[in-house]
Protein backbone atom coordinates (compact mmCIF):
# COMPACT_ATOMS: atom_id res chain seq x y z
CA UNK A 1 0.00 0.00 0.00
CA UNK A 2 1.10 3.53 -0.73
CA UNK A 3 2.74 5.03 2.41
CA UNK A 4 0.73 8.26 1.99
CA UNK A 5 -2.52 6.28 2.13
CA UNK A 6 -1.28 4.35 5.16
CA UNK A 7 -0.47 7.63 6.87
CA UNK A 8 -3.88 9.15 6.08
CA UNK A 9 -5.68 6.07 7.47
CA UNK A 10 -3.50 6.12 10.60
CA UNK A 11 -4.25 9.77 11.35
CA UNK A 12 -7.96 9.30 10.59
CA UNK A 13 -8.14 6.45 13.12
CA UNK A 14 -6.20 8.46 15.70
CA UNK A 15 -8.39 11.56 15.35
CA UNK A 16 -11.59 9.48 15.36
CA UNK A 17 -10.51 7.86 18.62
CA UNK A 18 -9.65 11.26 20.10
CA UNK A 19 -12.99 12.68 18.91
CA UNK A 20 -15.08 9.71 20.16
CA UNK A 21 -13.27 9.64 23.52
CA UNK A 22 -13.96 13.33 24.05
CA UNK A 23 -17.61 13.04 22.97
CA UNK A 24 -18.29 10.08 25.26
CA UNK A 25 -16.36 11.85 28.08
CA UNK A 26 -13.85 9.07 28.66
CA UNK A 27 -11.68 11.87 30.02
CA UNK A 28 -12.25 15.42 31.25
CA UNK A 29 -11.89 18.27 28.71
CA UNK A 30 -9.20 19.86 30.96
CA UNK A 31 -7.09 16.65 30.64
CA UNK A 32 -7.50 16.43 26.87
CA UNK A 33 -9.81 18.83 25.03
CA UNK A 34 -11.62 17.55 21.96
CA UNK A 35 -10.17 18.00 18.45
CA UNK A 36 -12.92 20.53 17.65
CA UNK A 37 -11.85 22.73 20.56
CA UNK A 38 -8.22 22.52 19.50
CA UNK A 39 -9.15 23.45 15.94
CA UNK A 40 -11.28 26.30 17.23
CA UNK A 41 -8.42 27.61 19.38
CA UNK A 42 -6.10 27.49 16.37
CA UNK A 43 -8.62 29.29 14.14
CA UNK A 44 -9.11 32.03 16.74
CA UNK A 45 -5.34 32.33 17.19
CA UNK A 46 -4.76 32.76 13.46
CA UNK A 47 -7.75 35.07 13.01
CA UNK A 48 -6.65 37.52 15.68
CA UNK A 49 -3.12 37.12 14.31
CA UNK A 50 -1.50 36.28 17.69
CA UNK A 51 -0.23 32.96 16.35
CA UNK A 52 1.05 34.65 13.20
CA UNK A 53 3.00 37.18 15.27
CA UNK A 54 4.25 34.29 17.42
CA UNK A 55 5.44 32.37 14.37
CA UNK A 56 7.20 35.42 12.94
CA UNK A 57 8.88 36.20 16.29
CA UNK A 58 9.96 32.59 16.85
CA UNK A 59 11.35 32.22 13.35
CA UNK A 60 13.25 35.49 13.64
CA UNK A 61 14.99 34.26 16.80
CA UNK A 62 15.61 30.87 15.25
CA UNK A 63 17.11 32.34 12.07
CA UNK A 64 19.46 34.62 14.01
CA UNK A 65 20.38 31.96 16.58
CA UNK A 66 20.84 29.12 14.09
CA UNK A 67 22.79 31.38 11.73
CA UNK A 68 25.21 32.38 14.47
CA UNK A 69 25.54 28.81 15.71
CA UNK A 70 26.34 27.48 12.22
CA UNK A 71 29.05 30.09 11.73
CA UNK A 72 30.63 29.65 15.16
CA UNK A 73 30.12 25.88 15.04
CA UNK A 74 31.86 25.54 11.66
CA UNK A 75 34.76 27.76 12.72
CA UNK A 76 35.23 25.75 15.91
CA UNK A 77 34.95 22.50 13.96
CA UNK A 78 37.72 23.55 11.56
CA UNK A 79 39.87 24.66 14.49
CA UNK A 80 39.44 21.37 16.36
CA UNK A 81 40.13 19.31 13.25
CA UNK A 82 43.23 21.28 12.29
CA UNK A 83 44.87 21.94 15.65
CA UNK A 84 45.77 18.99 17.82
CA UNK A 85 46.30 21.22 20.86
CA UNK A 86 42.90 22.86 20.44
CA UNK A 87 41.32 19.43 20.05
CA UNK A 88 42.93 18.13 23.23
CA UNK A 89 41.91 21.17 25.30
CA UNK A 90 38.92 22.98 23.83
CA UNK A 91 37.68 19.73 22.29
CA UNK A 92 37.05 18.22 25.71
CA UNK A 93 35.07 21.29 26.75
CA UNK A 94 32.96 21.13 23.58
CA UNK A 95 32.17 17.46 24.26
CA UNK A 96 31.13 18.30 27.81
CA UNK A 97 29.03 21.28 26.70
CA UNK A 98 27.31 19.17 24.04
CA UNK A 99 25.98 16.87 26.77
CA UNK A 100 24.47 19.82 28.68
CA UNK A 101 20.95 20.74 27.47
CA UNK A 102 21.34 24.35 26.39
CA UNK A 103 18.23 25.50 28.31
CA UNK A 104 20.14 25.21 31.61
CA UNK A 105 22.09 28.27 30.44
CA UNK A 106 18.93 30.40 30.59
CA UNK A 107 19.29 31.62 34.23
CA UNK A 108 22.85 32.77 33.47
CA UNK A 109 21.81 34.23 30.13
CA UNK A 110 19.06 36.26 31.85
CA UNK A 111 21.64 37.61 34.29
CA UNK A 112 23.99 38.53 31.45
CA UNK A 113 21.56 39.87 28.85
CA UNK A 114 18.37 40.56 30.80
CA UNK A 115 14.97 38.93 30.37
CA UNK A 116 14.76 39.56 26.62
CA UNK A 117 15.37 38.39 23.05
CA UNK A 118 19.12 38.16 23.56
CA UNK A 119 18.90 35.64 26.39
CA UNK A 120 16.71 33.33 24.27
CA UNK A 121 18.91 33.71 21.20
CA UNK A 122 21.95 32.89 23.36
CA UNK A 123 20.32 29.62 24.39
CA UNK A 124 19.44 28.84 20.77
CA UNK A 125 23.05 29.52 19.70
CA UNK A 126 24.38 27.19 22.38
CA UNK A 127 21.85 24.58 21.31
CA UNK A 128 23.09 24.42 17.72
CA UNK A 129 26.78 25.26 17.92
CA UNK A 130 28.41 22.20 19.42
CA UNK A 131 26.70 19.55 17.34
CA UNK A 132 27.78 21.48 14.23
CA UNK A 133 31.33 21.68 15.63
CA UNK A 134 31.56 17.97 16.32
CA UNK A 135 30.17 16.98 12.93
CA UNK A 136 32.40 19.27 10.92
CA UNK A 137 35.43 18.22 12.97
CA UNK A 138 34.68 14.60 12.16
CA UNK A 139 34.03 15.43 8.50
CA UNK A 140 37.37 17.16 8.08
CA UNK A 141 39.23 14.43 9.95
CA UNK A 142 37.61 11.73 7.82
CA UNK A 143 38.57 13.21 4.46
CA UNK A 144 40.12 10.34 2.52
CA UNK A 145 43.94 10.63 2.60
CA UNK A 146 43.84 9.54 -1.04
CA UNK A 147 42.07 12.80 -2.05
CA UNK A 148 44.72 14.79 -0.24
CA UNK A 149 47.57 12.83 -1.82
CA UNK A 150 46.03 13.18 -5.27
CA UNK A 151 45.53 16.92 -4.79
CA UNK A 152 49.12 17.36 -3.60
CA UNK A 153 50.49 15.66 -6.71
CA UNK A 154 48.50 18.26 -8.65
CA UNK A 155 50.29 21.08 -6.87
CA UNK A 156 47.58 21.94 -4.35
CA UNK A 157 48.75 22.87 -0.85
CA UNK A 158 47.72 24.93 2.17
CA UNK A 159 44.65 27.12 1.82
CA UNK A 160 44.06 26.00 -1.78
CA UNK A 161 44.02 22.36 -0.62
CA UNK A 162 41.61 23.19 2.19
CA UNK A 163 39.26 25.25 0.04
CA UNK A 164 39.15 22.97 -2.98
CA UNK A 165 39.48 19.49 -1.46
CA UNK A 166 39.17 19.18 2.31
CA UNK A 167 36.18 21.48 2.70
CA UNK A 168 34.07 20.09 -0.16
CA UNK A 169 34.96 16.54 0.88
CA UNK A 170 33.51 17.19 4.34
CA UNK A 171 30.23 18.71 3.13
CA UNK A 172 28.15 15.57 3.77
CA UNK A 173 29.11 15.85 7.44
CA UNK A 174 28.44 19.60 7.45
CA UNK A 175 24.91 18.99 6.11
CA UNK A 176 24.21 16.39 8.79
CA UNK A 177 25.65 18.80 11.36
CA UNK A 178 23.36 21.59 10.16
CA UNK A 179 20.31 19.32 10.31
CA UNK A 180 21.08 18.29 13.88
CA UNK A 181 21.91 21.90 14.79
CA UNK A 182 18.50 22.95 13.52
CA UNK A 183 16.79 20.23 15.58
CA UNK A 184 18.64 21.19 18.76
CA UNK A 185 18.14 24.92 18.14
CA UNK A 186 14.40 24.45 17.56
CA UNK A 187 14.02 22.57 20.88
CA UNK A 188 16.18 25.15 22.68
CA UNK A 189 14.08 27.96 21.23
CA UNK A 190 10.81 26.45 22.44
CA UNK A 191 12.22 25.81 25.91
CA UNK A 192 13.71 29.31 26.03
CA UNK A 193 10.45 30.97 25.00
CA UNK A 194 8.49 28.88 27.46
CA UNK A 195 10.58 30.32 30.30
CA UNK A 196 11.05 33.82 28.89
CA UNK A 197 9.01 36.64 27.37
CA UNK A 198 6.92 36.91 24.22
CA UNK A 199 5.85 37.05 21.60
CA UNK A 200 6.70 33.54 20.44
CA UNK A 201 5.13 30.09 20.14
CA UNK A 202 6.66 28.90 23.43
CA UNK A 203 5.49 32.01 25.25
CA UNK A 204 1.92 31.64 23.96
CA UNK A 205 1.95 28.01 25.06
CA UNK A 206 2.82 28.98 28.64
CA UNK A 207 0.35 31.89 28.57
CA UNK A 208 -2.42 29.51 27.46
CA UNK A 209 -1.42 27.04 30.16
CA UNK A 210 -1.55 29.77 32.84
CA UNK A 211 -5.14 30.51 31.81
CA UNK A 212 -6.11 26.85 31.60
CA UNK A 213 -6.63 27.05 27.83
CA UNK A 214 -5.53 23.45 27.14
CA UNK A 215 -7.00 23.54 23.62
CA UNK A 216 -4.52 26.27 22.67
CA UNK A 217 -1.69 24.41 24.44
CA UNK A 218 -2.30 21.39 22.22
CA UNK A 219 -2.78 23.62 19.20
CA UNK A 220 0.63 25.21 19.71
CA UNK A 221 2.20 21.80 20.31
CA UNK A 222 0.80 20.64 16.99
CA UNK A 223 2.22 23.70 15.24
CA UNK A 224 5.63 23.05 16.78
CA UNK A 225 5.56 19.41 15.68
CA UNK A 226 4.35 20.18 12.17
CA UNK A 227 7.01 22.83 11.62
CA UNK A 228 9.70 20.50 12.96
CA UNK A 229 8.63 17.73 10.61
CA UNK A 230 8.32 19.96 7.57
CA UNK A 231 11.75 21.52 8.01
CA UNK A 232 13.41 18.19 8.73
CA UNK A 233 11.74 16.08 6.05
CA UNK A 234 11.19 18.55 3.28
CA UNK A 235 14.32 20.64 3.60
CA UNK A 236 17.17 18.93 5.41
CA UNK A 237 16.58 15.30 4.47
CA UNK A 238 16.27 16.26 0.82
CA UNK A 239 19.50 18.22 0.87
CA UNK A 240 21.22 15.42 2.76
CA UNK A 241 20.02 12.82 0.31
CA UNK A 242 21.10 14.71 -2.79
CA UNK A 243 24.49 15.50 -1.24
CA UNK A 244 25.11 11.87 -0.25
CA UNK A 245 24.15 10.79 -3.75
CA UNK A 246 26.40 13.32 -5.44
CA UNK A 247 29.30 12.46 -3.15
CA UNK A 248 28.84 8.82 -4.15
CA UNK A 249 28.12 7.73 -0.59
CA UNK A 250 24.68 6.38 -1.41
CA UNK A 251 23.26 5.15 -4.67
Amino acid at each position, binding site marked *: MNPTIKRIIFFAVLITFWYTGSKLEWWLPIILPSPEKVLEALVIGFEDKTLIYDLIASFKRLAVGLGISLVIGSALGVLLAKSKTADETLGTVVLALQSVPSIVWLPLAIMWFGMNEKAVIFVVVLGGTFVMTLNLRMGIKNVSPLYIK*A*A*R*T*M*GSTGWDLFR*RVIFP*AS*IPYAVTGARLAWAFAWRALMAGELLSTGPGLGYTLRYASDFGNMALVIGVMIIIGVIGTIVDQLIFQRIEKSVLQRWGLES
Partner: protein
Amino acid sequence: MFIEINNVHKQYADKNNHQVDILKDINLGVNKGEFVSILGPSGCGKSTLLSIVAGLTPATGGEIIADGKRIEKPGKDRGMVFQQAALFPWLTVLENVIFPLKKEMTKKQAEAEAKKYLQMVQLGNYISHYPHELSGGMQQRVAIARALAMNPDILLMDEPFGALDEQTRSRLHDQLETIWTETQKTILFVTHSISESIKLSDRIIVMGTKPGIILKDIKVDIPRPRQQHKKAMVELEEYIMGFLKKEIDKVVREELAHESNN
Protein backbone atom coordinates in the same frame (compact mmCIF):
# COMPACT_ATOMS: atom_id res chain seq x y z
CA MET B 1 69.67 10.27 -17.13
CA PHE B 2 66.30 11.99 -16.88
CA ILE B 3 65.42 10.50 -13.49
CA GLU B 4 68.26 9.52 -11.18
CA ILE B 5 67.52 7.58 -8.02
CA ASN B 6 70.72 7.63 -5.96
CA ASN B 7 71.22 5.42 -2.88
CA VAL B 8 67.64 5.86 -1.74
CA HIS B 9 66.93 4.38 1.62
CA LYS B 10 63.70 4.21 3.58
CA GLN B 11 63.15 3.07 7.14
CA TYR B 12 59.99 2.82 9.18
CA ALA B 13 59.69 2.33 12.90
CA ASP B 14 57.63 -0.81 13.61
CA LYS B 15 55.38 -1.17 16.62
CA ASN B 16 58.28 -2.18 18.88
CA ASN B 17 60.08 0.96 17.72
CA HIS B 18 62.70 -1.01 15.79
CA GLN B 19 63.84 0.58 12.57
CA VAL B 20 62.88 -1.64 9.66
CA ASP B 21 64.42 -1.20 6.22
CA ILE B 22 61.70 -0.84 3.61
CA LEU B 23 64.03 0.20 0.83
CA LYS B 24 67.78 -0.23 0.80
CA ASP B 25 70.40 1.17 -1.56
CA ILE B 26 68.08 1.82 -4.45
CA ASN B 27 70.00 3.07 -7.49
CA LEU B 28 68.16 3.51 -10.74
CA GLY B 29 68.42 5.69 -13.81
CA VAL B 30 65.58 6.26 -16.24
CA ASN B 31 65.95 7.82 -19.68
CA LYS B 32 63.60 10.44 -21.06
CA GLY B 33 60.61 8.85 -22.74
CA GLU B 34 61.31 5.43 -21.29
CA PHE B 35 58.53 3.16 -19.99
CA VAL B 36 59.91 1.46 -16.88
CA SER B 37 58.01 -1.06 -14.78
CA ILE B 38 58.85 -1.71 -11.16
CA LEU B 39 57.87 -5.29 -10.46
CA GLY B 40 57.91 -7.11 -7.16
CA PRO B 41 55.94 -9.12 -4.63
CA SER B 42 53.74 -7.32 -2.13
CA GLY B 43 55.69 -5.67 0.64
CA CYS B 44 58.82 -5.02 -1.41
CA GLY B 45 58.44 -1.27 -1.11
CA LYS B 46 57.75 -0.60 -4.78
CA SER B 47 54.81 1.67 -4.00
CA THR B 48 56.86 3.47 -1.34
CA LEU B 49 59.58 4.06 -3.93
CA LEU B 50 57.05 5.58 -6.31
CA SER B 51 55.64 7.71 -3.52
CA ILE B 52 59.14 9.03 -2.80
CA VAL B 53 59.59 9.92 -6.47
CA ALA B 54 56.21 11.69 -6.33
CA GLY B 55 57.45 13.68 -3.34
CA LEU B 56 54.62 12.45 -1.12
CA THR B 57 56.89 10.40 1.16
CA PRO B 58 60.32 11.65 2.28
CA ALA B 59 63.24 9.22 1.89
CA THR B 60 65.34 8.42 4.96
CA GLY B 61 68.52 8.70 2.89
CA GLY B 62 69.73 9.30 -0.66
CA GLU B 63 68.29 11.59 -3.28
CA ILE B 64 66.21 11.63 -6.42
CA ILE B 65 66.96 13.99 -9.27
CA ALA B 66 64.37 14.53 -11.98
CA ASP B 67 65.31 16.66 -14.97
CA GLY B 68 68.26 18.08 -13.05
CA LYS B 69 66.22 19.11 -10.00
CA ARG B 70 66.28 17.41 -6.62
CA ILE B 71 62.84 16.14 -5.58
CA GLU B 72 61.66 17.37 -2.20
CA LYS B 73 57.93 17.79 -2.62
CA PRO B 74 55.16 16.95 -5.09
CA GLY B 75 55.24 18.93 -8.31
CA LYS B 76 53.34 19.30 -11.53
CA ASP B 77 56.29 17.87 -13.45
CA ARG B 78 55.24 14.48 -12.07
CA GLY B 79 51.65 13.33 -12.61
CA MET B 80 50.45 10.44 -10.48
CA VAL B 81 47.78 7.80 -11.02
CA PHE B 82 46.81 5.68 -8.00
CA GLN B 83 45.24 2.23 -7.78
CA GLN B 84 41.94 3.90 -6.90
CA ALA B 85 40.98 6.65 -9.30
CA ALA B 86 40.90 9.24 -6.46
CA LEU B 87 38.55 11.49 -8.44
CA PHE B 88 36.74 14.17 -6.47
CA PRO B 89 33.11 13.03 -6.29
CA TRP B 90 31.69 16.56 -5.98
CA LEU B 91 33.14 17.57 -9.36
CA THR B 92 32.08 16.45 -12.82
CA VAL B 93 34.49 14.54 -15.03
CA LEU B 94 35.47 17.77 -16.81
CA GLU B 95 35.90 19.71 -13.55
CA ASN B 96 38.09 16.92 -12.18
CA VAL B 97 40.42 17.14 -15.15
CA ILE B 98 40.45 20.95 -14.93
CA PHE B 99 41.42 20.76 -11.23
CA PRO B 100 45.23 20.94 -11.74
CA LEU B 101 44.90 23.63 -14.43
CA LYS B 102 42.89 26.22 -12.49
CA LYS B 103 45.76 28.44 -11.43
CA GLU B 104 47.75 28.77 -14.61
CA MET B 105 45.05 29.02 -17.26
CA THR B 106 41.88 30.91 -18.05
CA LYS B 107 38.69 28.90 -17.74
CA LYS B 108 38.38 28.57 -21.51
CA GLN B 109 41.94 27.35 -22.01
CA ALA B 110 41.65 24.88 -19.14
CA GLU B 111 38.41 23.50 -20.56
CA ALA B 112 39.88 23.06 -24.01
CA GLU B 113 42.96 21.39 -22.56
CA ALA B 114 40.90 19.05 -20.35
CA LYS B 115 38.64 18.09 -23.23
CA LYS B 116 41.67 17.26 -25.36
CA TYR B 117 42.90 14.72 -22.80
CA LEU B 118 39.44 13.33 -22.14
CA GLN B 119 39.18 12.65 -25.86
CA MET B 120 42.56 10.95 -25.72
CA VAL B 121 41.16 8.48 -23.17
CA GLN B 122 37.96 8.26 -25.24
CA LEU B 123 35.66 9.83 -22.66
CA GLY B 124 34.75 12.92 -24.65
CA ASN B 125 31.07 12.06 -24.29
CA TYR B 126 31.12 11.85 -20.51
CA ILE B 127 32.41 15.28 -19.52
CA SER B 128 29.36 16.29 -17.49
CA HIS B 129 28.93 12.98 -15.66
CA TYR B 130 29.83 12.60 -12.02
CA PRO B 131 32.45 9.99 -11.05
CA HIS B 132 29.94 7.71 -9.30
CA GLU B 133 28.09 7.36 -12.58
CA LEU B 134 31.13 5.80 -14.28
CA SER B 135 32.55 2.26 -14.18
CA GLY B 136 35.88 1.57 -12.48
CA GLY B 137 37.75 1.44 -15.78
CA MET B 138 36.23 4.75 -16.93
CA GLN B 139 37.11 6.39 -13.62
CA GLN B 140 40.70 5.26 -14.01
CA ARG B 141 40.79 6.72 -17.53
CA VAL B 142 39.59 10.06 -16.11
CA ALA B 143 42.38 9.84 -13.54
CA ILE B 144 44.89 9.28 -16.35
CA ALA B 145 43.48 12.26 -18.28
CA ARG B 146 43.72 14.37 -15.13
CA ALA B 147 47.36 13.45 -14.60
CA LEU B 148 48.16 14.10 -18.27
CA ALA B 149 46.35 17.45 -18.29
CA MET B 150 49.11 19.08 -16.23
CA ASN B 151 51.40 18.04 -19.06
CA PRO B 152 54.00 16.49 -16.74
CA ASP B 153 57.24 15.09 -18.09
CA ILE B 154 56.89 12.08 -15.86
CA LEU B 155 53.87 9.88 -15.27
CA LEU B 156 53.94 7.82 -12.08
CA MET B 157 51.47 4.93 -11.99
CA ASP B 158 50.91 2.88 -8.85
CA GLU B 159 49.21 -0.38 -9.88
CA PRO B 160 46.69 1.70 -11.83
CA PHE B 161 44.85 -1.28 -13.29
CA GLY B 162 45.13 -3.57 -10.27
CA ALA B 163 41.50 -3.21 -9.23
CA LEU B 164 40.03 -3.79 -12.70
CA ASP B 165 38.75 -6.92 -14.38
CA GLU B 166 40.94 -8.69 -16.94
CA GLN B 167 39.17 -7.46 -20.08
CA THR B 168 39.08 -3.83 -18.99
CA ARG B 169 42.72 -4.05 -17.98
CA SER B 170 43.74 -5.41 -21.35
CA ARG B 171 41.91 -2.60 -23.16
CA LEU B 172 43.51 0.00 -20.93
CA HIS B 173 46.95 -1.48 -21.62
CA ASP B 174 46.46 -0.81 -25.31
CA GLN B 175 45.18 2.70 -24.61
CA LEU B 176 48.08 3.49 -22.33
CA GLU B 177 50.56 2.26 -24.89
CA THR B 178 48.99 4.53 -27.52
CA ILE B 179 48.99 7.51 -25.15
CA TRP B 180 52.62 6.88 -24.26
CA THR B 181 53.58 6.73 -27.94
CA GLU B 182 51.65 9.95 -28.66
CA THR B 183 52.80 11.99 -25.68
CA GLN B 184 56.38 10.67 -25.20
CA LYS B 185 56.06 10.75 -21.42
CA THR B 186 58.55 9.05 -19.16
CA ILE B 187 56.54 6.44 -17.27
CA LEU B 188 57.32 4.71 -13.99
CA PHE B 189 54.78 1.92 -13.61
CA VAL B 190 54.46 -0.10 -10.41
CA THR B 191 52.87 -3.53 -10.74
CA HIS B 192 52.93 -7.03 -9.32
CA SER B 193 51.84 -8.58 -12.61
CA ILE B 194 54.70 -10.00 -14.65
CA SER B 195 52.70 -10.20 -17.88
CA GLU B 196 51.54 -6.59 -17.49
CA SER B 197 55.10 -5.38 -17.13
CA ILE B 198 56.27 -7.39 -20.16
CA LYS B 199 53.39 -6.18 -22.29
CA LEU B 200 54.02 -2.50 -21.58
CA SER B 201 57.54 -1.64 -20.65
CA ASP B 202 60.96 -0.98 -22.15
CA ARG B 203 62.64 -2.08 -18.95
CA ILE B 204 61.55 -4.10 -15.95
CA ILE B 205 63.08 -3.47 -12.55
CA VAL B 206 62.56 -6.59 -10.45
CA MET B 207 62.53 -5.94 -6.72
CA GLY B 208 63.03 -8.29 -3.78
CA THR B 209 61.64 -7.93 -0.29
CA LYS B 210 62.92 -7.42 3.24
CA PRO B 211 64.64 -5.16 2.71
CA GLY B 212 63.37 -3.85 -0.63
CA ILE B 213 66.27 -4.02 -3.07
CA ILE B 214 66.64 -4.08 -6.83
CA LEU B 215 67.31 -7.67 -7.89
CA LYS B 216 67.53 -7.25 -11.62
CA ASP B 217 67.23 -4.66 -14.34
CA ILE B 218 65.81 -6.38 -17.43
CA LYS B 219 65.63 -4.78 -20.86
CA VAL B 220 62.58 -5.94 -22.80
CA ASP B 221 63.78 -6.39 -26.36
CA ILE B 222 60.49 -7.49 -27.87
CA PRO B 223 59.26 -5.28 -30.74
CA ARG B 224 55.90 -3.57 -30.39
CA PRO B 225 53.06 -4.35 -30.78
CA ARG B 226 53.97 -7.24 -28.60
CA GLN B 227 50.85 -9.36 -29.06
CA GLN B 228 52.50 -10.60 -32.25
CA HIS B 229 55.43 -12.00 -30.31
CA LYS B 230 53.69 -14.29 -27.86
CA LYS B 231 56.55 -16.78 -27.69
CA ALA B 232 59.16 -14.23 -26.64
CA MET B 233 56.76 -12.84 -24.04
CA VAL B 234 56.11 -16.25 -22.52
CA GLU B 235 59.84 -17.01 -22.38
CA LEU B 236 60.58 -13.74 -20.62
CA GLU B 237 57.69 -14.33 -18.23
CA GLU B 238 59.10 -17.73 -17.26
CA TYR B 239 62.54 -16.25 -16.80
CA ILE B 240 61.21 -13.52 -14.44
CA MET B 241 58.94 -15.98 -12.65
CA GLY B 242 61.97 -18.17 -11.84
CA PHE B 243 63.55 -15.10 -10.37
CA LEU B 244 60.58 -13.94 -8.35
CA LYS B 245 59.66 -17.39 -7.11
CA LYS B 246 62.58 -17.37 -4.73
CA GLU B 247 61.40 -14.02 -3.38
CA ILE B 248 57.78 -15.06 -3.04
CA ASP B 249 58.89 -18.28 -1.31
CA LYS B 250 60.93 -16.14 1.05
CA VAL B 251 57.87 -14.05 1.94
CA VAL B 252 55.73 -17.15 2.45
CA ARG B 253 58.42 -18.85 4.58
CA GLU B 254 58.77 -15.77 6.76
CA GLU B 255 55.03 -15.50 7.21
CA LEU B 256 54.85 -19.16 8.21
CA ALA B 257 57.79 -18.82 10.60
CA HIS B 258 56.14 -15.76 12.08
CA GLU B 259 52.94 -17.73 12.54
CA SER B 260 54.65 -20.64 14.34
CA ASN B 261 56.47 -18.23 16.62
CA ASN B 262 53.21 -16.79 17.84
